[in-house]
């Protein structure tokens, strides 16, 4: 969930042991089935910062985002991340004990080669996924898959998991029974809107329209080219020159000038990501002191950072959760209040301040810009921060080894239900000590144990509200901003949506 910036790493798969969420069943929204394309045909060129690593698993962000182009999961996150859409499954049911999940496949589903998709294919695909290193640890041991008939697919778990469907099932594709899962990494047989026609790794992926896609007349486009353009300045120039239709990442400093460029629109989309600075409490004992953590949060002017470093894009963080379901939007961010921060420092065990180090990725202007402001503002309350820039891969390894004091990062939820994210960030999930920070609050852990068992949406919302209140009062980390994604898109591209999960749902896109 800690993101790596362009070209790098890991937005992570959500795992799964002991998760929660809504019971009952059936899609919460539908998926524009049976619509019409105002214009059909044409090619869309989409400049992305990094390439897909493979087409079958969820290896990193660039892979996760492009995965729905050639894959059809049972269900998928809807476009505003408020619930699930039906995909390969037209409906589903969850048993009252949250152990059995039954999916009813759509009629007439086909692979791109015209072969029918049956529940036997789903069983084989899920069994292959379970055994694949790319899904390591995601399926609980003892999970059983079965196909009572050609259109029914059943998953049985050993232990109850109320949020099982929301947390995992939008991330596993269906492939023909008997096919080798590893073959799908590079030559996937498509069940999604597009077919992978050509892939020059690290350069370009050419996707052609899948004539056997279930949701006709979609996709509207004949072809989508995903081209890798690592430099965001170049992406920005290419979209202005009309060389690409969509630029995935544009430098914050260029947003204003791009908005005035002709033939280009610059929409901003909210995402499930936020920027924060993790505080390692074992390596730097001062961070065990709640007064110190609170003082730091009051000492930072988040609005100023958004204005000067991010050129106005984003909003101050107001919760330990990103803007997922159950996010408490009524909560207030820590205000910029130096007097209060100084008062809290005086009450702490470190009234005279201390020295510490913040780890940032070298060459990342946004991270280093934020770190510079943080350094200046923490100096006012007596905290002397040294900025240590390291190569991105090294930075994440130091984090994994807990060899840092402050760690500048982006973090995101990959599921719309926040259980996995909360477990990861604040309830000591994955045996990594609350996202490598060694934060621990027994009361938070106790409430979380209730969440894991609770399937009723109203009760679940109340429990998440309680968790957010508890952790926000504790200030486990130093919170900066929610991240909004700003893209540059040619004006003749219509129907583009970027869900908060950033999946590429391009089947509705058309060109005029």
């Amino acid at each position, binding site marked *: 969930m800690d993101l790596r910036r362009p070209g790098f*790493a890991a937005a992570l798969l959500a795992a799964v042991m002991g998760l929660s969420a809504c019971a009952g069943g059936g899609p919460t929204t539908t998926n524009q089935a049976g619509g019409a394309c105002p214009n059909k045909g044409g090619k869309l060129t989409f400049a992305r910062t990094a390439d897909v690593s493979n087409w079958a698993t969820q290896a990193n962000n660039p892979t996760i985002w492009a995965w729905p182009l050639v894959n059809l999961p049972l269900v998928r996150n809807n476009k505003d991340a408020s619930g699930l859409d039906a995909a390969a499954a037209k409906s589903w049911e969850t048993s009252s004990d949250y152990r059995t999940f039954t999916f009813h496949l759509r009629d007439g589903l086909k692979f791109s080669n015209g072969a029918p998709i049956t529940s036997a294919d789903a069983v084989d695909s899920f069994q292959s996924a379970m055994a694949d290193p790319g899904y390591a640890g995601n399926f609980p041991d003892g999970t059983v898959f079965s196909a009572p008939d050609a259109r029914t697919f059943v998953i049985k778990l050993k232990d109850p998991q109320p949020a099982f469907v929301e947390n995992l099932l939008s991330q596993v594709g269906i492939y023909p029974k008997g096919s080798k899962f590893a073959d799908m990494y590079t030559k996937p047989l498509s069940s999604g809107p597009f077919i992978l026609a050509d892939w020059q790794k690290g350069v370009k992926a050419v996707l052609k329209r899948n004539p056997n896609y279930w949701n006709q007349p979609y996709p509207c486009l004949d072809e989508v080219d995903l081209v890798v353009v690592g430099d965001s300045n170049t992406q920005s120039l290419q979209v202005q020159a009309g060389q690409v239709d969509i630029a995935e990442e544009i430098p914050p400093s260029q947003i204003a000038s791009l908005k005035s460029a002709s033939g280009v629109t610059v929409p901003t989309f909210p995402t499930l990501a936020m920027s924060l600075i993790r505080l390692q409490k074992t390596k730097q004992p001062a961070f065990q002191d709640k007064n110190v953590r609170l003082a730091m949060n009051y000492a930072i002017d988040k609005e100023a950072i958004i204005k000067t470093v991010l050129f106005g894009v984003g909003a101050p963080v107001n919760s330990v959760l990103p803007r997922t379901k159950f996010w408490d939007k009524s909560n207030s961010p820590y205000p910029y209040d130096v007097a209060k921060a100084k008062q809290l420092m005086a009450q702490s065990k470190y009234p005279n301040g201390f020295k510490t180090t913040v780890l940032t990725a070298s060459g990342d202007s946004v991270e280093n810009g934020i770190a510079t402001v943080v350094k200046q503002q923490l100096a006012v309350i007596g905290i002397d921060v040294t900025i240590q820039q390291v190569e991105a891969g090294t930075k994440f*390894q130091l984090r994994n080894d807990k060899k840092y004091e402050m760690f500048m990062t982006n973090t995101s939820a990959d599921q719309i239900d926040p259980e996995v994210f909360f477990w990861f960030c604040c309830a000591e999930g994955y045996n990594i000590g609350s996202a490598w920070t060694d934060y621990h609050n027994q009361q938070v852990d106790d409430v979380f144990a209730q969440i894991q068992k609770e399937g009723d949406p109203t009760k679940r919302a109340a429990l998440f509200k309680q968790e957010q209140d508890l952790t926000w009062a504790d200030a486990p980390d130093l919170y900066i901003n929610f991240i909004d994604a700003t893209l540059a898109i040619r004006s003749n591209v219509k129907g583009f949506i970027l869900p908060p999960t950033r999946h590429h749902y391009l089947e509705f896109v058309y060109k005029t």
Partner: protein
Amino acid sequence: MIRFISVRILQLIPLGFGITVVMFFLIRIVPGDPAKMALGVWATPEKVARLRADWGLDRPLWDQYLTFLNQLFHGDLGYSYFYRKPAAEIVLERLPPELFLIAYALALTILVGVTLGVVAALRRERLPDHLIRGVMMAGLSLPAYWMGIILLLFFGLWLRILPVGGYGDSFPDHLLSLFLPALTIALGMAPLVIRALRASLIETLQADHVDMARSKGLPQFVVLVRHVIRPALIPTVTVLGINIGLLIGSTLIIESVFAIPGLGNLMVSAVSSRDFPVVQAVTLNFAVLVVAINLLTDVVVAYLDPRARQAMLA
């Protein structure tokens, strides 16, 4: 000459061995476990250990190195952890844009450098010489990243006569797409050529054998071509050879700015994902290119100057 080339090639054997040692161990000193990166941080220690064993990363380093050498002698550069295909195949896909860019940049460097170097030397301390030296200073001072962006803005966005980065799909496309990156490199390298050529031309023009040629009544052009250019080229070729070696390393920035799918770009992503086999394969390619260019430089210098050939053999 054949003896000279043979001796130089033999001298490369220990060098090649040293390169394999450095490139193998250097990437492994850097923190970062490829198996953890491939599986994500949630992977259980058992699954990480299994993948490490599959990739042979659980064996002692010296053992891994010997395996690597053995595979190398059999033409096998390993299997990419990230792309899940042979590293040699990935490198071969990226080699044509790399070589195209280097050759293109070299051609532009020679064209610009030799022309302006000769003009500056022949018009010494006059307006053309001052102008050329001024431009030369600017070319040396401006960072390639900035220069690349400015060229893209000017030719790609404002004039719209050249593509904004990329490599293109056909030979004419490549020529157009790589013109600006090659020019960016040439603008950085040409000043070095101009400076070396200008200095050696001025020195050679004052040599006794040139006075003798002139006194025989030979036309200026003939004097230049027969008696001045050849000896004056020797230091220029050496400067060029050294800088092509540096250029291969610096293509990394140019490829990033211009979105060229070359080896530099591949190297950056492979280092980030700790894709050891690809890092090794790219490093080996860079090393072979640099060594080959150095060898070629020595051969050209030896051809132009027999005294150098004797000195190098000694």
